[in-house]
């Protein structure tokens, strides 16, 4: 029953779409019926074109996010632990974070060239800000009493960090990574349209515009949405369950 009621809205919207598409009010090339989009989707998947676009995009996302996660966690923790680092970096982070990442895109493309390097560095740069901010907050939010208790029980600096500060800050760090990945994903799709890379979902959609292939665009958008949903559902919720929820630091 529950499953059934989730399907209803999609059926209604799908039926409306079909009605408009078949009524001939708009040119078929611009407003293709769903069966045409589905046929295109199957055709492109079978030909291996869609999977390759998706794979290239995911590779870029993974590379950019790896940069963001490493640099962001290191900088964030340094800012949380050391006064000097906080004084130096916090103003820069607070100025840089609110500027829309895409505004940097042309500059980065100019500096690092069109193609992979520019887009990966941009994704890494944009995704880094939420990771820095959350890691910093997370380290600051570790309860003072835990630190003092651990010190009383003789924990040295290294064990204090490994067993108290890192687990204490992890819920925040994970939340930061989640935000960072979502932001990086949005930017990546857009930057692929601007950076003229030969493969990638963003490019697939933007390139299809030239030939009025609306069906290709809609199939590409569906894949982008599915990947976004999957990243959220299968990567982060699971990661949270195995770490912070299991340690009892956060309710499931």
């Amino acid at each position, binding site marked *: 029953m529950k499953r059934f*009621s*989730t399907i*209803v*809205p*999609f059926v*209604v*919207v799908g039926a409306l779409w079909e009605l408009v598409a078949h009524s001939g009010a708009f040119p078929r090339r*611009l*407003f293709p019926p769903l069966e045409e989009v589905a046929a295109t989707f199957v055709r492109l998947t079978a030909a291996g074109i869609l999977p390759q676009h998706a794979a290239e995009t995911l590779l870029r996302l993974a590379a950019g996010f790896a940069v963001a996660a490493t640099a962001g966690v290191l900088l964030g923790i340094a800012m949380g632990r050391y006064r000097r680092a906080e*004084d*130096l*970096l*916090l*103003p*820069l982070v607070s*100025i840089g974070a*609110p*500027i*829309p*990442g*895409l*505004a*940097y*895109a*042309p*500059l980065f*493309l*100019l*500096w690092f060239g069109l193609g992979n390097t520019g887009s990966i560095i941009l994704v890494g740069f944009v995704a880094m800000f939420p990771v820095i901010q959350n890691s910093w907050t997370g380290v600051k939010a570790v309860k003072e009493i835990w630190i003092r208790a651990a010190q009383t029980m003789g924990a040295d600096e290294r064990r204090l960090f490994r067993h108290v500060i890192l687990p204490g800050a992890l819920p925040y760090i994970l939340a930061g990574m989640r935000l960072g990945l979502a932001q990086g*994903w*949005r930017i990546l*799709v*857009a930057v692929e*349209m*601007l950076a003229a890379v030969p493969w990638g*979902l*963003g490019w697939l*959609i*933007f390139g*299809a*515009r030239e030939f*009025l292939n*609306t069906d290709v*665009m*809609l199939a*590409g*958008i569906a894949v*982008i*949405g599915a990947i*976004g*949903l999957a990243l*959220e559902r299968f990567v982060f919720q699971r990661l949270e369950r195995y770490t912070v929820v299991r340690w009892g630091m956060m309710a499931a």
Partner: protein
Amino acid sequence: MKAILSILAAAAVYEVVARGGWFAAALVPTLPAVARTLWAMLADGTMAGHALSTLYRVFAGLALAAALGLVLGFLMARSRAVERFFLPLVSVLMPIPSLAWAPVFILWFGLGDTATVLVVFYAASFPMILNTWTGARAVNPLWLRAAGAMGAGGASMFWKVIVPGALPFIITGLRLAFQRAWIAVVGAEMLAASDFGLGWVIFDAKEFLNADIMLASLAVIGAIGFFVERLGFAPLERYTVLRWGMVRSAKA
């Protein structure tokens, strides 16, 4: 004071890199050159023109999103049937980056304002819908019963209890919506705008290697984002939910 020192340090590092001669001066202009360009563009009014058309697009999209989000959010909170119909649609559409729709909107509505405003609208709608919906459901049931016992009817219950009760969430939603809209507008202008707008200026400057124009526009984009937050949302909160004592200021 410390913030100024850290910004000065970053500026000094940049200046050394720019004057070091490792990179072409056109790609890494010195800060005085950027300042001169910014001043020239401010003085002859071109920057104001670009900023105004960007602001127009952002607020048009945001206003549409707020209208839709408020109506739909309250309806979803009010009626199970509406909630059951729209919630699955919202959760499927939300993970699709708004800029992925840009090529489709460009095909349907042509280059220019309509496509840009629609992309902004798409980006800003989801935080508005979700926060209004959450806010309306989070109204303390005790208040509802108290107001009901004192004889509040449908309309006065809605305007005097539910709306103020949901307002902290709604303002947060507006804030998130603006952040997203601000990103979306810059991206959409790069792809879809013609001749005006801050995103378009940056993208256009890339063609002519005018890194000084890009950096000057970046500064304006950052400054506008900052001032909307400081002069728009912070006072809005101060005069409504803070004054009514519904949330406490973080610093107080």
